[in-house]
């Protein structure tokens, strides 16, 4: 009974058949192209054939008594995919960033860290990008945290219509950055005089002329600060939901005890609830921060590649695919990755450790 592997005939035959089918279709597909509805699907066909072959192996692996082997084997395709598409491609990008590849033909001539030093020390545009990202990140995080916490405290009062308000604050999250950027780009119309439109028109008809603004067309760096508005519109509701979850997890008993001790509602928030919300704030800063460090589509939709609103993501896109400067594009991509990793990796390691203790 302690055998670690037991050969069962029907399964074994099934395994052989699956592996054979996989091999046959792989060898067919490597000779002829597979075309369905005008699409060349040879690679997809090869992928599926490979998986059929692999499922034959899985059937054999399932005959081991120790099922953790099967577990690892089942996970393997996903692990391999992530290993190639995330880690392999990062390594490849890094290698490109150490080259002088400019133009359509790959050129892997080694130039060391030259692309990085050029970007950081000699490139005005990249400097603007870093400043813009900093402005955006600070404005975006502060805006979301302050509004989110405020809305969460208001909604915690168990007023009537709470669900409706929560829904209204959250719905912009479901819209794409592109759609939101297009709408807000139009609402923040800088035109004046007879062409006045958007929010400026509201200000004018309310007699609040002093609020009329050039919005994202303001001189740098203020223009960038206004691109924060649509981003906060989209993600303050999410921050609110995080905070509301945190506030509601503070037990009612604790609050009641504080009330009995004579604390006012304000003091309960100030001295009991707010300190307990620090982990929520940390999560929110990490999630919002990593989004803003790689902000891209929202700015594309608002600014339409306006250089005053440039960010690293857009620079990477234009220099690589319009300017065919692949080495520089790769270096920008890797710098973006480093900035996000500095924020996220400590957090991931921390949550892995706490997980291991459980």
């Amino acid at each position, binding site marked *: 009974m302690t055998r670690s592997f037991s050969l069962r005939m029907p399964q074994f035959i099934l395994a052989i058949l699956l592996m054979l089918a996989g091999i046959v279709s792989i060898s067919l597909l490597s000779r002829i192209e597979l075309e369905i509805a005008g699409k060349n699907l040879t690679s997809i066909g090869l992928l599926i054939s490979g998986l059929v072959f692999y499922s034959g192996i899985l059937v054999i692996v399932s005959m081991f008594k120790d099922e953790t082997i099967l577990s690892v084997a089942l996970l393997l395709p996903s692990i391999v995919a992530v290993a190639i*598409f995330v880690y392999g491609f990062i390594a490849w990008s890094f290698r490109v960033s150490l080259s002088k590849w400019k133009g359509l033909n790959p050129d892997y001539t080694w130039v060391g860290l030259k692309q990085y030093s050029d970007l950081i020390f000699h490139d005005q545009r990249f400097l603007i990008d870093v400043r813009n990202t900093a402005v955006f990140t600070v404005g975006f995080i502060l805006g979301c945290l302050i509004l989110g916490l405020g809305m969460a405290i*208001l909604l915690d009062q168990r007023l009537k219509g709470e669900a409706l*308000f929560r829904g209204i604050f959250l719905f912009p999250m479901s819209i794409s950055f592109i759609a939101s950027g297009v*709408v807000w780009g139009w609402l923040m119309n800088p035109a004046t005089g007879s062409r006045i439109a958007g929010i400026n028109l509201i200000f004018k008809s309310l007699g609040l002329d002093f609020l009329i603004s050039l919005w994202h067309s303001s001189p740098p760096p203020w223009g960038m600060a206004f691109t924060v508005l649509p981003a906060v519109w989209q993600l303050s509701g999410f921050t609110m939901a995080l905070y509301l979850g945190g506030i509601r997890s503070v037990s009612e008993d604790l609050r009641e005890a504080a009330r009995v001790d004579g604390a006012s509602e304000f003091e309960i928030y100030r001295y009991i609830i707010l300190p307990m919300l620090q982990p929520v704030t940390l999560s929110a800063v990490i999630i919002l921060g990593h989004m803003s460090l790689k902000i891209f589509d929202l700015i594309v939709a608002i600014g339409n590649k306006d250089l005053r609103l440039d960010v690293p993501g857009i620079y990477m896109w234009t220099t690589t*695919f319009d300017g065919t400067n692949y080495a520089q594009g790769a270096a920008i991509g890797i710098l973006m990755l480093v900035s996000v990793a500095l924020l996220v990796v400590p957090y991931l390691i921390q949550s892995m450790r706490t997980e291991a203790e459980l």
Partner: protein
Amino acid sequence: MNSRALVNSLFYAILVALAVVYLLPVYMLIITGLKPITEVDLKTMWDLPTMGIHFDNFIAGYKQLAPNLTNSLVMVIPEAILSALLGSLNGYLLSKWKFRNSNLIFTLILFGMFIPYQSILIPLVKFMQSIKLYGDLPGLILVHIIYGIPITTLIFRNYYAGISSEILEAGRIDGASLWGLYRHIMFPLSAPSFAVVIIWQFTQAWNEFLFAVILTNQSHWPVTVALNNLAGSQLVQWNVLMAATLLAALPTLLVYIFLGRFFLRGLMAGALKG
């Protein structure tokens, strides 16, 4: 008691004011879309339609985006379903069949969710070109599934971790295998998290822009790319552009309105654990 009522009405006033600001862009999109072309005027852009309800702008916007809405739909549906199946399998294995270093592997997979895709973009394009999946939707579907592995695995893993291992232990004593436990116990219990993941992946892929603009050519553009292109061209009137924007945002908005609670759970899973 009276001061409490006063404070409450102050809170209401703030909430209502905020709600008005949050709804303002949608209000503008809807009223602009419903006006006849003849009534469109910058001066009255915030006023309700006075000449009856017309769908001219929506029809004109739909004409601009129709093929792209189809492209998005064709891409998103298989993507969401396959992602969910893969995520479910991964989540099951990583929560109930832990092996040595499985937590490390999970963390390494998870990191893929945070990376800026600019850092893998050049190799991705070259790779997709070399396997001839560049320019069309099947390639984009594959890319979305692969880069969706971290989040779908995370959501399912957290969900399955909450299902007591005792049920599985009982099944194991009855002689069920790893596969049998999944098919007969875990999978039937997974409906809620399938809803969360399918909705999440649907929304993400529908709204995604970078992969779409880099990996597809013009005839296969999803709706985000086409909308951005429309906004950049000077040929389209703003009222048609606003109607087109509403059409492009409508599917995910409807998903949010009708299935919002699942959407929210997806968000919270994305937030990791506090």
